[in-house]
């Protein structure tokens, strides 16, 4: 009975990233690019026009030598639930053409590239810079288009794209489940590319609502925090760090505020 309730309950796919384990190697970024047909240009050092659905930030504690500390923080789309977790994430409600949407069934913020006409209002709305505009035509060097995956549609110039929590993997897993006469997935059947690739096992992905999934417990860790929680964006990506300055870097505090 209880189990069934669990199944009926809407899913809230989310992520817990252990920053103590993350080494900043960048495998998640590349896994994401390789999985999602993310294009590249000759010069990608201008980070403000460089499409990186999942970007690893380098944080420092700002102290001089030798008290300096570094922490890496991978930032996928936070798939915000918005105020009260009703699905009104900052970006979703502003899109004038319904190109981005929030699914109550999965908690995933979708981006439909063919619907987007490139007004960039959603980018203004997103405080995490998780949304990227295709300033350039995606072009692959001759022959390299061979590695493009048919599971993710190739984007075109002039539209916004972002992390989808590898939703196509959910679709593919569901295909198999339906074929086998099932309606539900096991935890390991739907994992994002970054989670799978991370050599440090720093990323855990699953249904935050499902008590059987690892993320359900991990998000309750005493060192868990989310980015910019004060804005009430209600992100579904949790971070864990044993270092206080890192946790504090996750949000803005007035100088007068003590923890």
């Amino acid at each position: 009975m209880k189990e069934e309730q669990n199944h009926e309950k809407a899913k809230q796919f989310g992520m817990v990233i252990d920053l103590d384990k993350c080494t900043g190697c960048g495998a998640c970024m590349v896994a994401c690019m390789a999985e999602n047909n993310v294009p590249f240009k000759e010069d990608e050092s201008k980070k403000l026009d460089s499409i990186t659905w999942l970007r690893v930030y380098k944080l420092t504690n700002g102290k001089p030598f030798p008290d300096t500390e570094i922490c890496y923080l991978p930032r996928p789309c936070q798939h915000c639930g918005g105020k009260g977790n009703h699905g009104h994430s900052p970006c979703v409600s502003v899109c004038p053409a319904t190109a981005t949407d929030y699914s109550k069934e999965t908690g995933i913020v979708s981006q439909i590239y063919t619907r987007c006409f490139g007004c960039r209002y959603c980018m203004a709305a997103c405080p995490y810079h998780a949304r990227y505009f295709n300033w350039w035509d995606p072009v692959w060097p001759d022959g390299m288009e061979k590695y493009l995956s048919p599971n993710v549609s190739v984007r075109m110039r002039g539209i916004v794209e972002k992390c989808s929590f590898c939703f196509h993997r959910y679709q593919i897993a569901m295909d198999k489940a339906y074929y086998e006469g099932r309606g539900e997935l096991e935890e390991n059947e739907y994992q994002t590319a970054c989670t799978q690739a991370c050599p440090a096992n720093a990323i855990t992905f699953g249904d935050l609502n499902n008590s059987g999934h690892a993320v359900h417990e991990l998000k309750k860790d005493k060192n868990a925090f989310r980015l910019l929680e004060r804005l009430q964006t209600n992100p579904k990506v949790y971070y864990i760090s044993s270092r206080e300055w890192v946790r504090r870097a996750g949000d803005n505090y007035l100088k007068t505020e003590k923890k």
Partner: protein
Amino acid sequence: MSKPDDKTTGISAGTDSTEAGSSSAGGIEKGQGNGDSGFVILFFIIGFVASLIIGWVVFPKLLYSQKAQPIDFNHALHLEAVSDGCESCHLFREDGTYAGVPSNAQCVDCHQEVQGDSPEEKKFVEEYVAKEREVPWLVYSKQPDCVFFSHAAHVKKAGMECITCHGPIGESTSLQVYEENRITGYSRNIWGKNIAGIKREPWDRMKMDDCAECHEKEAGKRSSVQTDKEACFVCHK
């Protein structure tokens, strides 16, 4: 060079003087006959009708190019010979994905050698099987790249019949001409044969709205926050 030499008064807005000015060039003479307005109406009708013809008849002809299938396949004939209906050839793979149009590997079970006296079969065996080339079929129902369509969800989960979306293609003895939209590159079957987009049968059109219509009726999920219909990330990838 002309100089503003007019001395007439009154250029203020809202004057209701109907007095025509001097008969300078371009001025329209008073007292035009009613016969002229007949011409005006005639020209209107000419323009109207001509453009209607252009829009409804000429435009569709220009918009679509006609392409013949490499082999004229007889669905009806094959359907009689197989035991498992459409799925005999249009298979699901082990991983739940849908294989779509059969590959030669499936056909050669029967067609390694020419079986009957059909010239199309002969062409298939000689041109494709013997040369180990796949047949470049033109797929009428091919959706744009942004679409994720799960046959498993529709056929296995929802138990839908092939005919619901694809129509009675299994009864056909010959393949229809493939019409390709010159702008989009997609088959005319997606928009539907009717240029106005009117459909009579559910399979007449395969646009997003047609999917959505059924999803709203049958699935009834309201998972999308924005549209209160089913979420975009069900059919899009």
